[in-house]
């Protein structure tokens, strides 16, 4: 079992990346040229400039997102504002759309024919302003999720201790809240940095002449067929992600649990000043999110922006060959396969890593492999797949240009988060279940089927929905791998935009949103139904609040 997983990662992650590195030190004919390509890269000021552009955009976006999301998460977890559920749901909307949706919405708001163009005071939305704005929009929920988790883990006794010691609210915030959320903030920063640094969709749509690494790779590979330079830039793109990844891992290890079994969960107190400030802030942020997605929808429905605002469905007819409804159906197929096969592969994998006694060294290797995909940008993985699977002498060359390679690529691309979700759920189960079942002479697969699987069902659903939505919205992983028969909705949206049909691009992006929302709703209903039947063993244990009251 373990060995087949190692083989899986070798075939679909390690070997392709190895081939990519090889390409970067070869010339067009495949002869070894050492670091010549890298020297060429350094001598090309335009390419080199892209690196700093990417760095600047990523850092600026990270700072803005962390500040905005921290305040939002603080409002949701530490204040008594009303409508928290509503704010949370709205704030997570950007997760359900491809990143380009934000860019398209910005074009409608601030583009050459945008209605709020005047607000830019002569600056163009096509460039750093637009890229940062759109990046902040689509990465906001990612930051919000991590930060609200780390802000919600808090011991209310610490605040009481501070209060009885006559501490001001500000000092309590600086000495308890911030240090408590420190690792969450660090982690968020690295995640957001990597997301923005490696994103392809946003700069493609709204970057204008502002070059970034991700768009450079695309230009080199698709535009100029310069695969060697594409490989070099890919590795340049990979480097900061890798560094961010390792720093994040290191800081996670240093993290100590601030919560003990005796901690009492924090319950916010009413404060008119803070609550009303935070309420207006949350309302403002959700309004912007709604305006963004609302504009994308509006743009997809009006006849001819901004001259003829009567409604029509003609933009949903997609008259460009290969970029129409068939790509939408392909996306659904991809998402469906990825969710089904991905969930099985990943959950069984996390079970093997977490629960089975096996060779420690092989287990260590597999663990490393499961973490690797997180640090590999989709664009890099996609390019690596071209080099590896397109090679004539590769025995599994036959999967090239099929739906299969797209599914595998997407599973590997989103492996790490799903895997860690599975591991976390499995860690909560008693270590000795396996020993007990062995001592009772019950084969492990039976025990897996009868106990592990039912207990972890909520987690398994979570993994499958994560994979589904990401497969629907991803661009960077698949942009190099689709063919005429396997075009995808997110990619079509980009090409429609490229051809100047922004309304159709908006319509296509909105189709993805509809499906994601629909699937989310089905998932919620289904999960509730199944949970009622399989989770009856979870006794109605007292909530923490009730515990406090009893004491």
């Amino acid at each position, binding site marked *: 079992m373990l060995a087949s997983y190692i083989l899986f990662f070798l075939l679909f992650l390690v070997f392709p990346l190895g081939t990519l590195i090889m390409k970067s030190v070869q010339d067009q004919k495949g002869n070894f040229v050492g670091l010549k390509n890298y020297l060429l890269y350094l001598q090309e000021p335009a390419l080199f400039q892209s690196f700093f552009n990417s760095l600047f955009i990523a850092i600026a976006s990270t700072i803005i997102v962390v500040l905005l999301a921290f305040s939002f998460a603080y409002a949701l977890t530490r204040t008594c504002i009303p409508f928290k559920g509503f704010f949370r749901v709205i704030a997570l909307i950007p997760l359900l759309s491809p990143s380009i949706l934000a860019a398209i919405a910005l074009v409608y708001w601030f583009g050459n024919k945008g209605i709020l163009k005047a607000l830019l005071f002569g600056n163009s939305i096509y460039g750093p302003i637009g890229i940062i704005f759109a990046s902040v929009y689509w990465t906001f929920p990612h930051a919000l999720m991590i930060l609200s988790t780390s802000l919600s883990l808090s*011991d209310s*006794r*610490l605040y*009481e*201790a*501070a*209060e*009885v*010691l*006559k*501490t*001001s609210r500000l*000092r309590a915030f600086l*000495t*308890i809240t911030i*240090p*408590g959320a*420190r690792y969450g903030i660090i982690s968020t920063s690295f995640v957001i940095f990597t997301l923005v640094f490696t994103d392809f969709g946003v700069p493609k749509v709204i970057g204008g002449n502002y070059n970034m690494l991700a768009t450079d790779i695309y230009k080199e590979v698709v535009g100029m067929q310069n695969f060697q330079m594409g490989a070099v830039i890919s590795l340049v793109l990979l480097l900061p992600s890798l560094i961010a990844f390792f720093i994040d891992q290191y800081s996670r290890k240093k993290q*100590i649990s*601030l919560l*003990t079994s*005796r*901690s*009492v969960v924090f319950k916010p107190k009413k404060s008119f000043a803070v609550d009303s400030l935070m309420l207006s802030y949350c309302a403002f942020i959700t309004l912007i999110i709604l305006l963004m997605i609302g504009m994308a929808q509006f743009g997809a429905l009006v006849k001819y922006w901004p001259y003829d605002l009567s409604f029509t469905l003609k933009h949903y007819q997609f008259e460009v060959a290969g970029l129409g409804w068939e790509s939408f159906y392909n996306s659904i197929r991809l998402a469906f396969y990825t969710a089904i096969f991905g969930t099985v592969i990943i959950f069984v994998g996390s079970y093997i890593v977490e629960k089975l006694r096996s060779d420690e060294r092989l287990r260590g290797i597999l663990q490393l492999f499961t973490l690797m995909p997180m640090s590999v940008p989709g664009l890099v993985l996609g390019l690596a797949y071209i080099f590896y699977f397109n090679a004539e002498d590769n025995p599994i060359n036959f999967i090239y240009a099929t739906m299969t390679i797209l599914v595998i690529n997407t599973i590997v691309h989103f492996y790490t988060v799903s895997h860690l979700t599975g591991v976390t759920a499995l860690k909560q189960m008693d270590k000795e279940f396996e020993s007990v079942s062995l001592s009772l002479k019950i084969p492990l697969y039976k025990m897996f089927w009868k106990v592990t699987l039912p207990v972890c069902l909520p987690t398994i659903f979570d993994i499958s929905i994560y994979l589904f939505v990401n497969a629907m919205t991803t661009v960077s992983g698949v942009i190099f791998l689709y063919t005429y028969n396997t075009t995808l909705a997110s990619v079509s949206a980009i090409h429609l935009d490229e051809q100047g049909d922004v309304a159709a691009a908006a319509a296509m992006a909105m189709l993805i949103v509809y499906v994601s929302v629909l699937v989310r709703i089905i998932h919620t209903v289904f999960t509730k139904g199944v949970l009622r039947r399989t989770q009856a063993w979870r006794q109605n244990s007292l909530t923490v609040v009730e515990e406090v*009251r*009893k*004491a």
Partner: protein
Amino acid sequence: MSEKSIPTFLSVEKLSKNFGSFEAIQDISIEIEEGEFACFLGPSGCGKTTLLRCIAGLEKQSSGSITQKEIEISMLPPSARDFGIVFQSYALFPNLTVFSNISYGLINHKWGKDKITSRVNELLDLVGLKSHMAKYPGQLSGGEQQRVALARALATSPGLLLLDEPLSALDAKVRVYLRKQIKDLHRKLGITTIMVTHDQEEAQSMADRIFVMKDGKIIQSGSPKEIYEKANSSFIADFIGITNFIDAMVLKKNKVACNAFEVNCDTEDLNLGHPVRLAIRPESIKINHTVSDVENCVGAVIMENEFLGPFLRIYVESTSLSNELLMIDVASNSFTEMDLTPGTQIHIALPPDQIRVYLRD
């Protein structure tokens, strides 16, 4: 009970606290004297922590008032009251060193740097943690963390010290050691102290006065000795220490009937025919090998015995007295002369003044 010469330090009047429809504490009135070590004792859910948190101002009472040093404090926020508190979880700031934890409150008081350093050093001496001042809470044992929490609570020299189950997270040996340390500290500083605990042994060994609580009410208060010897309900007799219960019926004044034996005891003013429950501590029952003419002497058979260090606990069956086995504690230095192996026939005597009689419902 309270001597009039010592002024009342804290008085709680008709205090109630509801959480929705749940009444955590109901109509509680108590007075605590200056310098006293008081203890709220009761099973979990009895409202003792809620009462403490109301005194601290961390919960707001639904009705009633609290007065500290003749100033009404019921409506003041915690920061305007004068007390220090140690939580069950200690609530030490994990990201601050021992030194910074202890000085945390002093900084809020805008003390000078030198003054803070010398005060913290004084406190570190007091709790014996001088060598640990640069460490983080995570690097300390439970007992050490507890002492840091104590030092932090005492740093600003509050007039009242509140302890919320301060020892319950520790293992038995450390607990006994810290019991003595806290008691010594109390004696040395003379600070009025209120402790909440569910551990009757802890309350008995530390408190000057115990308030026993049940279902949000105080059902008895008094010195540890009074509570132990004169428990006013079978609930307290059972909760405090170990007790034998014998079901009986009042026959006449100062005489009750058990299964097949009549016991002399103080029936106070209970009516004839009333079902009662007799309670007698295991160490109060006397044993003899032969019949003697002492009061309430009855035959019994030893069924089992347990060696518990300083004493031996024997379980005897005496069907004429009770259907349950009775426990008798015999001091270790006296049982060597007696044959106490299981199966031995003995006689046991229940001294009438050691028997408490409770109504049975």
